Every structure is written in C-alpha cells, then in structure tokens.
C-alpha cells in the first residue's frame, strides 16, 4: 500500500524552521521526540526536510522514537501523587499513520 506520510527527526530551532509558505502548502504534524510528519511523495515536503536537515525515518523507526518518549512521560506520570494526577491525564499512546 502506498504510504500517505513520511517522517523525519528535526529539532525545531524556532523562527524559520517552518515558514508561512511551507505551512500553507503542506500539513505538518509534530510528535514527541522531535518527530515530524509531512506528506509522502510531495515536493514541498521533501524540500522542507532538506532545509531543516531532517533525519528521515521509516514509520516504524519514528514510531519507536515516539513510543520511547511516551513511555518516559507515562512513567513520570505514574510517579505523581494522586492529587497531582487529578488535573493531568496520563499521556496516551500515539500511533503514527502510514
């Protein structure tokens, strides 16, 4: 099955990491671990990954990075007191899309 999205790891350096024209052309999604999702087989997505020197990951590799971050966050949440947990839902598992 043809994939819809591609993934990379890139650290958001702030201004200019994603500019307005890039954001108006394609949809970006960010995930824990500096994982970014952009459309697959898309010129603008490929150009952006090159611009930010993103490290391209397969979906499984990206999922492993996200899982590790989520697990760490869940562990930290589990260590909170009951009072602290009241207003903070436990971080949910995240499943990346193909």
């Amino acid at each position, binding site marked *: 099955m043809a994939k819809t999205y591609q993934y990379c790891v890139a650290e*958001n*350096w*702030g*201004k*200019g*990491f*994603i*500019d*307005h*024209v*890039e*954001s*108006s052309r394609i*949809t*970006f*999604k*960010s995930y*824990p671990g500096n994982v970014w999702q952009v459309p697959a087989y898309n010129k603008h997505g490929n150009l952006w990954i090159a611009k930010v020197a993103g490290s391209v990951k397969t979906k499984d590799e990206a999922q492993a990075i996200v899982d590790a*971050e989520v697990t760490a*966050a869940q562990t930290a949440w589990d260590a909170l007191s009951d009072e*602290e947990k*009241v207003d903070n*839902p436990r*971080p*949910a598992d995240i499943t990346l899309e193909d």
Partner: protein
Amino acid sequence: MADYKSIKGTKIQNYTTDPDNPLTGQVWYNETDQVLKFQYTVTNPAWSTGGDMNVAINEMAGFGSQTAAIVAGGAAPSLSPAITGNTQSYNGSTWTTVNPLNTGRYQAGGTGTSTAGLVFGGYEPVGSANENTESWNGTSFTEVNDMTTARSRAGSAGTQTSALTFGGDDGTIITGVTESWNGTSWTEVADLNTGRRTLKGTGSDNTSALAFGGNPTPAATESWNGTSWTEVNDLNNGRSALASAQLGTATAALAFGGGPSPTAATESWDGTSWTEENNLSVARQMLAGAGTNSAGLAAGGSPPPARLTSTEEFNTGVATGAWATGGALNTGREELGSAQTGTQTAALAFGGNIPPTTGATESYNGTSWTEVNDLNTARSGLAGAGTQTAALAIAGEIPGAVPGITESYNGTSWTEVNDMNQGRLRLGSSGTQTSALAFGGEESGPPFQPSTATESWNGTSWTEVNDLNVARNFLPGTGADNTNALAIGGNYPVSKAITESWNGTSWTEVNDLNVARISAAAAGTNTAALAFGGTDTPPITAATESWNGTSWTSLNPLNTARGYLGGTGTTTSALAFGGNAPPVTDATEEWNDGIQTKTITSS
C-alpha cells in the same frame, strides 16, 4: 507599454528595509538587498460554514448553485414519515422549507438548477426502488414520465431538459444501466463499464458527464461522451455515498465526503485527474451536494447514526493563512497567562505550570523571548489582559488555593492590585490593563465547580456583571475591552463548541465552533477572532478557526497540536506559545493571514 507609474500613479519606492505594513499588490525596491519585492496574497480552495438546514437529514437529492440550491427528499427521523418529500431551498445564507416532492423518497438522483430541476428514482418505501420522475419549476414539483428502470443510489448529471442517470440498484441488484432524459422521456443508452451504486456524477447535459466513486469500485471514474463510457483516472480517496457539486461538468468536477467510514476528503477534477483539496470541516456521508467545482455546497448527511443540519461552502481563491515557527519560550509551560491584546511582535507570557507552578514572565519581540521580572505570586490556570508593556494577570491557582489575585505589569515589574470578587482558575478574559473582563472558570474545590460568573475591571477594581449563559472552565476569551468579548468553547462536563459574545451588558450565545474543544487559545475581538489549538479530552487538536462576527471558518492548523497554550494578536497576525502537546512545550508559532512578500527575479 504602460509603466508602473501610469498604472499605479506613483513610482516604485526605494527602501533600505522592507516597509512595515505593505499593501497587497505594493511593489518596492530594497536597496540593501538590491532586489525588487512585492506583496501578494496566498490563496487556496477551502470550505467555510454556511447556514444550518431546517431539518437534520441525509440521503437527499441536491441540485442548483452554492447560492441558490435545492435539496429534496431524504431520511429525517424527526419528520413523519421519516422517508420524506421535504424540500429545502438555500439562498447562500439560510434554508427555507418549500413545497415537497409528490412522492417522498430517499437516495434519489437530482440535477438542474433551483428554478429548473429534476428528481428521479430513489427508495419509497424502504428497499423498494422506484422509477418516478418529478420536475421542479422553482415553486413546486410536477410528475413527469418515469425512468425505464426503477433504481436508487444512482448517479446523475445534466439539466432539467437534458439529463443522465447511471448505475444504482433496484434494492438488490447493482446495475450499470444508463438512461438519457431529453426533457420529455428517458431512453436507455450504453451501460457504465462497471456497474455500481452510491456513486455520484456531474455533467453539463446528456452528452457530457462524469461518474465517480460508489460501491463496489469506490475510486473508479468514467467519462461519458454522449455515446459510451470510458474509464479515466481514479479518485485518490475511493469512497461511496459521496456528494458532488452537481452543476460541475465532465472537465471540472468536485467530489466530497462519503463512506463507509465518514470522510471529509475533497477532490477536484480538471478533466484529466483528481487533486486533493482542503477537507470538509465535518466528515460525513450520504450528504447532498450542489454548485460547481469553484463554488460548491455540502449539506446534511451523516456520521451514522446521526443526521446533520450543517452546511459547508467550498470556494477557490480563499486567502490562506498559515502558522510558521517562531522563537521558543525560555521556559516551556502550560496553563499560562497572556497579555490578550498584545501583538505578534510584542507579546507577554506569564505564569503557568512547568511543572511546578511558575511565576516566570517572558517578553516576545517578534523573534525571541526574553525573561523579565516574575509575577509576585506564581500560579497557573490564570487569565491575562493588556499589552506587552501594560498587562494584567488575573486570578489562577496557587497549588491548593484559588485566590482572586490580580497583578498589574508596567513593562518592568508586577504590582498587586485589587483582587477579583470570586477567586477562580482556568477562566477566560479579554481587554486591556484598564478595561478588562474575566469570565467562567472553576470557582472552588476540589472537586472544582464550573462558573458562569463574569467580572468587569475598570482599572481599579472588579465589579460583578451578568453571567455567562453556560457554565464552563478551560475557555479562552478574547476581546478589545470590558465591553467587547468572546467566550470560546470550554469544558463541563464535556468539551464544548459553544461561543458567547459580550456586548458590555450581557452574553449572547452565537454560532458554535466547528471543532468542540477545551483549553484553546484565542486572539482578536468579538467580531474578528481566531481560536487555535485545544483538546477534546483527548485528542489534542491543531485546529484553527476564524470568527467573522457571525460564524467560524476552519483554517490551516497549528504545526504543533497542543492544548493549554497562550495566544495573542489579531485574526491577521497572531501568536501561539507554550502549552501541552504532550509533553509541555516551549514552541511558538506565528499566524499570518496569507499576505506574503515575494522577491521578483528575472528568471
């Protein structure tokens, strides 16, 4: 050849740096960079909300234009009988119930205009397809000659006097049969290459049409030349029970919505291939469609088992705003306060939860955040008003306590001023340092109770004024002062899409957000606002919507979805910062309404 001055009335201006607020279309020469630049607007096709239908309904026939449409028949549990001849007319803003079909039915075909339409086939009663055809003259339906093959869930194309119907089923057997209407009677012509039902079509008349989608070949597209069908390029997103802009043609079509899982996908056809466009705001199937591929209309339909009243309008050439990354906060945090009437290049963030609760204050200059003096009392879930140099920090939670502390910022340091009458957290706010409004939130606890209470600040003290209509917490607010505010979404006991507008005296409930959510951020006034981010317990959303004083329109989402964030600015130039993605984030994003500067090159 005309030169720039003869067209614009002025010579191209030289600047050492780009002008601060260039007009769309303005051209200038940047002496430093030695390049010619101009200001332009980025446009893209997009859906926006239209007026709600009078009846929640699906499986109607739709025809006409975006501003003069008809939907006829359908299934509406609120009506008796539910299989109905109900007919509604749309004028571009409101729906009016008009004279019904003579034979109530659902899943019928329809084509034509709001003054000259045709409806044919469909189920009546359930599971029994009919061949009945009715002609619409702008006022009422008249029965005319039947189709030769009774069917439902067929595709349709053409006009009242030159139409085509194709595919469908008789209640059991799927067919590829095509019939041509000459204004008087139906004649069977060549079949589709692939028989199917729940497909859609469009076309100028009975000699030129397009058939697409349906079951069992949900992506298949075929083109009709007056004699036979030819297979052409597939839809990108195969689907059945979709809709089409019924006034489209065989070379300019629009497909949207569909199932079997409700989808919001929209695609446009250019005569050769399908291109994905911005999605509907509400995923739906079994909806009605009208209009063209540059001005389409989507009405009703279902995310089963619900029926919808909502309408969406598709337009090309919509100015397309977008979020770009900005400089990160020094301290990532959630449930923070913001100087609500700040700007994208002069913002103030204060307080929040790292964790722990913080009093840290940071100032943004359009590029980076700088730490300035802390709040006197660290707290989270607070509200804010004012500007970068004249701000107000309102209420919030000190761990274990919810006082009504108010602090005033003079550009350098915070000073405690008079408390609110009712301490609370996770409230909304609007206005300036000398004219602010605070509303909703949680009053006490645990367990915390949602509040309707509203208080007005005159620069010195808080006064209780009229309550919100709906108690809720986690609601962002925005507005110019204590006479102009908007309370957006919120929570209790579930996330809400409710919007209320404050006129200086009382709250009035106005049209809902497209995406119900809590803990979003907002910018603007009660007639021109932006709402972005938030959570729907969960998931976290990146959704951005624009308020024009009447209704919300979906815009491009945040690049980092998050809730519990801060926001400021206007509908044309806003700022989003901090929040919980998860995890708690320092990310900042800058909204620009689509106005861009481009460097002119000779190549």
